[in-house]
């Protein structure tokens, strides 16, 4: 096999970019959270990188992207053996999915998809901040990855029923990633319950520059997520890239304008959140729509998500950092947008030969067919992910592994679950404060009337 250096370099670069998104997400979520839970928040993301990477080479990839020998079973799950335990035997391994023509080694695709699996699980964590046992999170991540992410990835991209039979479109993960994670978040928090003090207290972001930087890193990495999903470098790749940029920009504007009108002031948290909403919404569509429709999709996503994050107050679920309001809602907007804007002018594989079997969108003369498919695909993933996530949470709850104690929640989950606290500046070892100079170390765990780690009590 001849490796195409341009294509392979692009896919590896894209993989690195998508990996970076998870620390970026950790920072985004961490900054949005209160400071006493920022480390737990980031640790949920980091643990996903550790866990899912290893599971992916062992069994994730083969189940998601291997081809099941039974054509019927292949609708729901990939191969149990093809790539099991990585399954490839060396550098002579060829690219299998798209034929040798792309010149991309299988391992490059495996690692690219690994990064998707990591971040999808990590996305869920934003809903559960400040109150979920870390051990419970690890179990949940493991179970949901295995029972939900892997099969859904197969349904959508691995030759399963959504992509292969239904012909719903999902360029880079509107259904497989964002709706999937958003629905799981909802299922999980319905079982987990609200944070102490919610919604009475404000739970404002503790570090807004982190939020903005996190959004910036996500945006940067998302080019790999979206434009990398074409795998090769061609005209569609370039569309995916420019669409990612303009839709995100438009969504940033959309969110900020809603704030400006509704609250009187545009905020940086709003701009950052709007950008993420736009990135989410354009994800499934980026390789199938033209730039001006991308702007429209972005504007709608930004404005609608800015309103949707208020839903939790009306409906009473505590989605801490708005995973539902942004990823679930944004994912649906993007997925449905394909029913209107998908066009073979951008992606020849629509209606093409060998094609995706999908139709042009409503505004491109394809009628309502594609809209219907998008709805069915997205709805199926919504229901499946939400239900299984809730069931997993239920089992963990029954085993008393789901929620930290009230005391731990008040003390702060960082100290309670990780025995560390995020900052040690002003009342500590910094050069400016008097306590710092006096060498007063801040109390990591607050013994005050609450149970604490290894507290020594005298007299």
């Amino acid at each position, binding site marked *: 096999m001849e490796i195409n250096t341009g294509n392979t370099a692009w896919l590896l670069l894209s993989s690195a970019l998508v990996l970076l998104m998870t620390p970026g997400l950790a920072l985004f979520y961490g900054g949005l959270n209160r400071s006493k839970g920022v480390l737990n928040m980031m640790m949920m993301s980091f643990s996903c990188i550790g866990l899912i990477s290893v599971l992916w080479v062992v069994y994730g990839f083969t189940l998601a992207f291997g081809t099941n020998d039974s054509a019927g079973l292949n609708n729901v799950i990939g191969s149990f053996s093809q790539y099991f335990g990585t399954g490839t035997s060396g550098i002579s391994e060829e690219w299998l999915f798209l034929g040798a023509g792309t010149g991309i080694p299988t391992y490059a695709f495996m690692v690219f998809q690994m990064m998707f699996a990591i971040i999808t699980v990590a996305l869920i964590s934003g809903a559960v901040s400040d109150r979920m046992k870390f051990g419970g999170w690890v179990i949940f991540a493991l179970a949901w990855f295995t029972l939900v992410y892997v099969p859904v990835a197969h349904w959508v991209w691995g030759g399963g029923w959504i992509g292969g039979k239904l012909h719903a479109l999902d360029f880079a993960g509107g259904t497989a990633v964002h709706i999937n994670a958003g629905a799981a978040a909802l299922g999980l928090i319905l079982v987990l319950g609200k944070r102490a003090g919610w919604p009475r207290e404000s739970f404002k972001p503790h570090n807004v520059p982190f939020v903005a930087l996190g959004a910036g890193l996500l945006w940067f990495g998302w080019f790999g997520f979206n434009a990398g999903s074409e795998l090769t470098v061609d005209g569609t790749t370039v569309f995916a890239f420019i669409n990612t940029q303009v839709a995100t920009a438009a969504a940033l504007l959309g969110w900020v304008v809603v704030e400006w009108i509704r609250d009187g002031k545009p905020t940086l948290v709003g701009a950052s959140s709007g950008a993420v909403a736009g990135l989410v919404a354009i994800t499934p569509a980026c390789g199938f729509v033209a730039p001006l429709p991308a702007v429209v999709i972005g504007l709608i996503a930004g404005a609608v998500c800015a309103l949707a994050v208020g839903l939790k107050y009306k409906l009473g679920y505590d989605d801490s950092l708005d995973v539902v309001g942004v990823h679930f809602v944004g994912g649906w907007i993007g997925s449905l947008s394909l029913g209107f804007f998908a066009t073979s002018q951008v992606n020849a594989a629509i209606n093409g030969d060998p094609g995706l079997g999908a139709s042009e969108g409503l505004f491109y003369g394809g009628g309502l067919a594609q809209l219907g498919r998008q709805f069915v695909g997205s709805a199926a993933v919504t229901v499946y992910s939400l239900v299984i996530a809730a069931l997993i949470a239920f089992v963990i709850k029954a085993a008393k592994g789901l929620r930290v104690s009230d005391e731990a929640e*008040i003390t702060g989950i960082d100290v309670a679950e990780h*025995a*560390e606290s995020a900052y040690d500046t002003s*009342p500590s070892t910094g050069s400016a404060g008097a*306590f710092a100079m006096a060498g*007063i*170390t*801040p*109390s*990591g*765990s*607050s*013994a*005050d*009337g*609450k149970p*604490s*780690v*290894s*507290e*020594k*009590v*005298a*007299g």
Partner: protein
Amino acid sequence: MKLVTAVIKPYQLDAVKEALHALGVAGLTVSEVQGYGRQKGHTEVYRGAEYTVEFLPKIKVEVLTDEIDVEKVVDAVVTSARTGKIGDGKVWVTSVEDVVRVRTGERGLDAL
């Protein structure tokens, strides 16, 4: 007039505020302090090594009050701040010779 000063556990501030509010106390001033006492701090582990934390975060509450109400105020604070565990803190009373409300220049009881 009197000044009632209390050094309490941070989590008890809400309760203390409510108790004073119930008494009709109109205002108070709080600050962050670090306490050292019988409650001996705790040890922390970092990379396998152990360290002792001696000072513990406390809240200082200061309430200016009428001579007549001072016992009620002290009792309210003591009761609401109590968890029964070591380190609950101290309350003390000092005499104040004069109080002025900056906004109006009113003096004495009128200033509270």
